[in-house]
């Protein structure tokens, strides 16, 4: 119910929303949780395992119970904590884990079966018979388990990633965080102040105590007004810092669109930030924990501080008759505030002796809650006091087992928190994260005055670290009442007392884990699933380990904590991987001929990130093979045109360029003359082939290297390494110019005729012989011409600055067509190279030596090169190697399948008889047969022999003849013609 005169909500702005199909109203400034409580909607969820009725337990991101699915158009967001979901007009939310309805949940029968569903139940029950696991047990568990459901449709919601840098990151904007921000801001350092709520102030918004003589929230407003005036301060609301990483890197999740009724086009729902900070001040406050007592999970039972937040911040009372149960001085504030607000307080129960206070509501010192009643919501509690039992009617109970400083971030780099007996809590270990200091309640300072002072002090020390000196600033006056606590964890007794509300772990489960010898805190956690749900046990872990410590007879410090890992709050995969979907995952690289190529209806195929045409269909062609065979014949008889710009191009210059090339390539480049091109082979240092390509000498100290499309990046990195790490003395510079040049292959008997139609000066065999290169001009444009061939035909590659690529492609196209030629795609390119016996990365796949491909003699014995020493190893040369051969089918079956293995014709096709494998195949229209390349044991000595190809996947067996891999023009007359 609403309480008049309380809260920071705007009662003039009514917001309509739906929960569980029912319409409700709330106010601007409400969360979904506060609006539900204002409407007396106590039952909001069912628990995970026992399907127990559950209500709202906290007022923050640590909420274990009130998980709902928020629906937004077609998409839905499961596991949204109602306590952090800002209310907006038209919000629609559904409860989870309830079927058929929230009030009657069929799986509530699990609660009756609870004696059987104890810790380790799954491990013990679903063991045998083994065959049941996949078909019976797993589907059953999957149906019963799980929190919420995804929409099972493509997620159209936008998520983003973002980066920020600052001098000082302040995490949390409660009293210590705000004071720290005000202090650092005055030094001129760049500050980011991040807080997970949309309204800054932390507990100052939830308490009635004054700061600097005004209400806490008014002091917050003043502080914010001052901070906004600083150009060097960036305030990030709705932003939870989720993890601390190396070298001052922090992850943070910003909820951008979640609190808006209409998310504007282009605005993401969430943004995942990577923030780099020279220093950080952790002001994350503390979280209140529960006390374990029988049936402590009924709707209406919540944290005492959460209850106070609903009253003071939202003007909501979660009940008509309020009771409070605690073991510390802070719990009394809840009873006091509700009484002062005019809500009936029926009991203040304190487990400590002798804590009577002068108040006008009943207080019970040295008392404890031993039972509760109310099936769908709290109706009464039973307390033990002065040796007797007493039943008190109430519909809301606030519980405080003390405060746990939020040390999570300090543990993200393996720091273990330190037990403080006076606070009965773990405190952050000092210097657990390099560059991060802790202030306020997170460091165990539990008063407002203390938090303000420490925020200021930490800010000063951080500023000093960064070379700024600050004048001491005045601290606002604030409450300074000491926080007094006597540890009290577990009331005991017969009934089930919950620890982890989200995973339904009770004190009994922890005790049973100990009985079964899961005594280490890490074992207990995994056996009982304590702290393993989406809330990661924020309210319950410390209490659970206290119960464990008691059951094992060890102390809490000896028992220790489990490991806190990032993220601090759940982060949607969509946010974490934002930008990594679809095109963001694999950006597209387009050729300069891309538009003209697509206009010719060529299907495009990915080659790395590049898109290249597969083939160019002509009218009437219905199968890619028709187009491909035609294109091959066209190149062999007239002229073909192909964009080969995807090949890596590296420009190498300097007096020592040739020495550098000689180190990189197996063969010598010292003898290469200006105006000539040479094929080169590169090895890895372990003696295997890295890449092949050509290298042209453009002038005395200027070379242009080409690499394969696939290995362009690897070769560049390798060259950087060889130069910088091995031979920094060489005077050579190089850079990738792959994107600077558009390069087209012009291949076929008519190639020269075509070029002579467009070049400013005609070429001949004399001016441009086979393996020649040089500068040419066309239409006054400086271009480069290389007489090289990947097809076995008389061929050239013509390169122009990329900006002329599109127009050159169109020009070449028109010229080729006039000569009976045209464009060809990479299907035809592959057939042409296989006919000629050229290799690609299908062959040089990383386990291949120069010897294997018949290029052993290309490793010069006159000089050293990368990989030379290891290439000479025994085992890398000889008849035991699989060597490159050609194959053609000779039996009835004509199919050859890349990846299939080779065997002797009479041998059983089993592993130990393996003789090699097929790497590439095609149908050769020139040879009018299927042809293939393969690696075969001692293959070069087996020409003319028969081998059996067996593809175990498709069950195809083909008898083949071993032959020379060069099927076309082995003498090379056409290249030179």
């Amino acid at each position: 119910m609403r309480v008049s005169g309380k809260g920071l909500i705007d009662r003039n702005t009514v917001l309509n929303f739906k929960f569980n199909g029912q319409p409700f109203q709330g106010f601007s400034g409400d969360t979904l949780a506060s609006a539900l409580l204002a409407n007396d909607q106590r039952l909001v969820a069912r628990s995970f395992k026992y399907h127990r009725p559950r209500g709202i337990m906290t007022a923050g991101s640590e909420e274990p119970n009130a998980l709902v699915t928020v629906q937004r158009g077609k998409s839905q967001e499961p596991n949204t904590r109602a306590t952090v979901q800002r209310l907006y007009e038209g919000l629609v939310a559904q409860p989870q884990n309830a079927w058929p309805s929230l009030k009657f949940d069929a799986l509530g029968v699990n609660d009756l079966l609870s004696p059987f569903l104890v810790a380790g139940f799954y491990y013990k029950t679903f063991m045998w018979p083994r065959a049941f696991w996949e078909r019976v047990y797993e589907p059953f568990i999957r149906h019963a388990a799980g929190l919420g459901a995804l929409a099972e449709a493509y997620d159209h919601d936008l998520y983003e990633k973002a980066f920020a840098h600052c001098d000082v990151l302040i995490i949390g904007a409660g009293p210590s965080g705000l004071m720290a921000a005000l202090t650092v801001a005055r030094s001129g350092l760049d500050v980011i102040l991040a807080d997970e709520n949309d309204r800054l102030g932390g507990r100052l918004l939830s308490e009635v105590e004054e700061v600097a003589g005004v209400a806490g929230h008014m002091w917050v407003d003043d502080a914010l007004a001052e901070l906004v005036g600083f150009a060097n301060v960036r305030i990030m609301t709705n932003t939870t810092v989720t993890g601390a990483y190396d070298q001052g890197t922090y992850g943070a999740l910003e909820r951008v669109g979640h609190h808006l009724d209409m998310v504007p086009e282009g605005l993401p729902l969430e943004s995942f930030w990577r923030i780099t900070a020279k220093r950080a001040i952790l002001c994350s406050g503390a979280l209140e924990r529960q006390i374990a007592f029988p049936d402590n999970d009924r709707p209406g039972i919540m944290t005492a501080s959460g209850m106070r937040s609903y009253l003071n911040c939202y003007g909501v009372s979660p009940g008509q008759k309020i009771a409070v149960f605690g073991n510390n001085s802070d719990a009394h504030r809840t009873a006091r505030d509700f009484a002062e607000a005019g809500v009936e307080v029926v009991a203040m129960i304190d487990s400590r002796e002798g804590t009577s206070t002068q108040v006008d509501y009943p207080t019970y010192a040295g008392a404890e809650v031993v039972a509760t009643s109310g099936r769908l919501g709290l109706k009464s509690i039973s307390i033990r006091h002065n040796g007797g039992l007493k039943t008190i009617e109430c519909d809301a109970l606030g519980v405080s087992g003390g405060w746990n400083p939020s040390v999570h971030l300090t543990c993200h780099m393996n720091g273990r928190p330190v037990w403080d007996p006076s606070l009965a809590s773990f405190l952050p270990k000092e210097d657990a994260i390099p560059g991060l200091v802790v202030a306020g309640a997170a460091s165990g300072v539990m008063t407002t005055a203390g938090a303000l002072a420490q925020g200021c002090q930490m800010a000063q020390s951080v500023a000093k670290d960064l070379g700024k000196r600050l004048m001491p600033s005045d601290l606002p006056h604030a409450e300074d009442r000491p926080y007094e606590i006597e540890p009290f964890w577990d009331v005991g007794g017969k009934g089930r007392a919950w620890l982890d509300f989200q995973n339904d772990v009770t004190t009994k489960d922890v005790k049973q884990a100990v009985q079964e010898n899961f005594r280490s805190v890490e074992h207990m956690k995994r056996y009982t699933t304590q702290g393993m749900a989406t809330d990661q046990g924020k309210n319950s872990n410390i209490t659970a380990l206290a119960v464990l410590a008691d059951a094992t007879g060890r102390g809490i410090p000896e028992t220790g904590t489990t490991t806190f890992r990032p993220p601090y709050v759940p982060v949607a995969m969509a946010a974490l991987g934002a930008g990594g979907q679809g095109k963001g995952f694999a950006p597209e690289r387009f050729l300069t001929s891309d538009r003209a190529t697509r206009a010719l209806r060529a299907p495009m195929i990915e080659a790395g990130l590049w898109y290249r045409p597969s083939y160019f269909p002509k009218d009437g062609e219905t199968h890619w093979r028709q187009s491909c065979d035609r294109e091959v014949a066209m190149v062999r008889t007239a002229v073909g045109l192909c964009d080969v710009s995807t090949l890596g191009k590296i420009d190498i210059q300097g007096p020592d360029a040739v020495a550098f090339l000689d180190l990189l390539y197996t063969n010598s480049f010292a003898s290469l003359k200006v105006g000539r091109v040479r094929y080169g082979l590169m090895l890895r240092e372990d003696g295997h082939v890295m890449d092949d390509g050509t290298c042209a000498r453009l002038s005395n100290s200027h070379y242009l290297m080409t690499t394969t499309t696939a290995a362009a990046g690897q070769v560049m990195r390798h060259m950087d390494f060889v130069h910088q790490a091995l031979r920094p003395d060489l005077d050579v510079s190089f850079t990738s110019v792959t994107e600077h040049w558009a390069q087209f292959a012009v291949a076929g008997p008519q190639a020269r005729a075509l070029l002579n139609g467009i070049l400013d000066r005609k070429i001949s065999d004399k001016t441009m012989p086979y393996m020649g290169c040089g500068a040419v001009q066309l239409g006054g444009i400086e271009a480069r011409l290389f007489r090289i061939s990947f097809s076995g035909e008389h061929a050239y590659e013509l390169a122009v600055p990329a900006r002329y690529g599109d127009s050159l492609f169109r020009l070449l196209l028109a010229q080729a067509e006039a000569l009976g030629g045209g464009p060809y795609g990479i299907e035809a390119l592959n057939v042409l190279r296989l006919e000629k016996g050229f290799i690609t990365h299908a062959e040089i796949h990383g386990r291949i030596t120069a010897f294997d491909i018949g290029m052993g003699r290309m490793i010069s014995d006159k000089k050293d090169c990368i990989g030379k020493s290891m290439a000479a190893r025994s085992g890398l040369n000889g008849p035991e190697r699989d060597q490159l051969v050609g194959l053609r089918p000779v039996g009835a079956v004509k199919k050859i399948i890349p990846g299939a293995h080779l065997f002797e014709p009479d041998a059983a096709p089993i592993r130990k008889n393996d003789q090699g494998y097929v790497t590439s195949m095609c149908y050769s229209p020139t040879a009018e047969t299927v042809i293939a390349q393969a690696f075969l044991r001692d293959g070069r000595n087996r020409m003319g022999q028969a081998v059996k190809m067996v593809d175990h996947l498709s069950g195809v067996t083909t008898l083949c003849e071993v032959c020379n891999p060069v099927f076309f023009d082995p003498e090379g007359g056409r290249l030179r013609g």
Partner: protein
Amino acid sequence: MRIECPLCGSRDRREFYYSGHASALERPDPDSSAEVWDDYLHNRDNPAGLTEDLWHHEMGCSAWLVVQRDTVSHAVLAVRLAKGDQL
């Protein structure tokens, strides 16, 4: 994780390509024994504590860097250019 590139300043590790221990800088003489080459190419220590490894600033200045770091604390202690002092 961040690496202080001597040429570019402090940069996110996503800009770098990792390439194993810095012993790769000590390329053996071509005539060295197979054991020496095997050691150079394949055998690596796995220290808990100080180590030096090679990172390529591939998305930056293309410099190969020798990064001295602590595998236990993840602290980056020193960074230098693989090619030596001359810039």
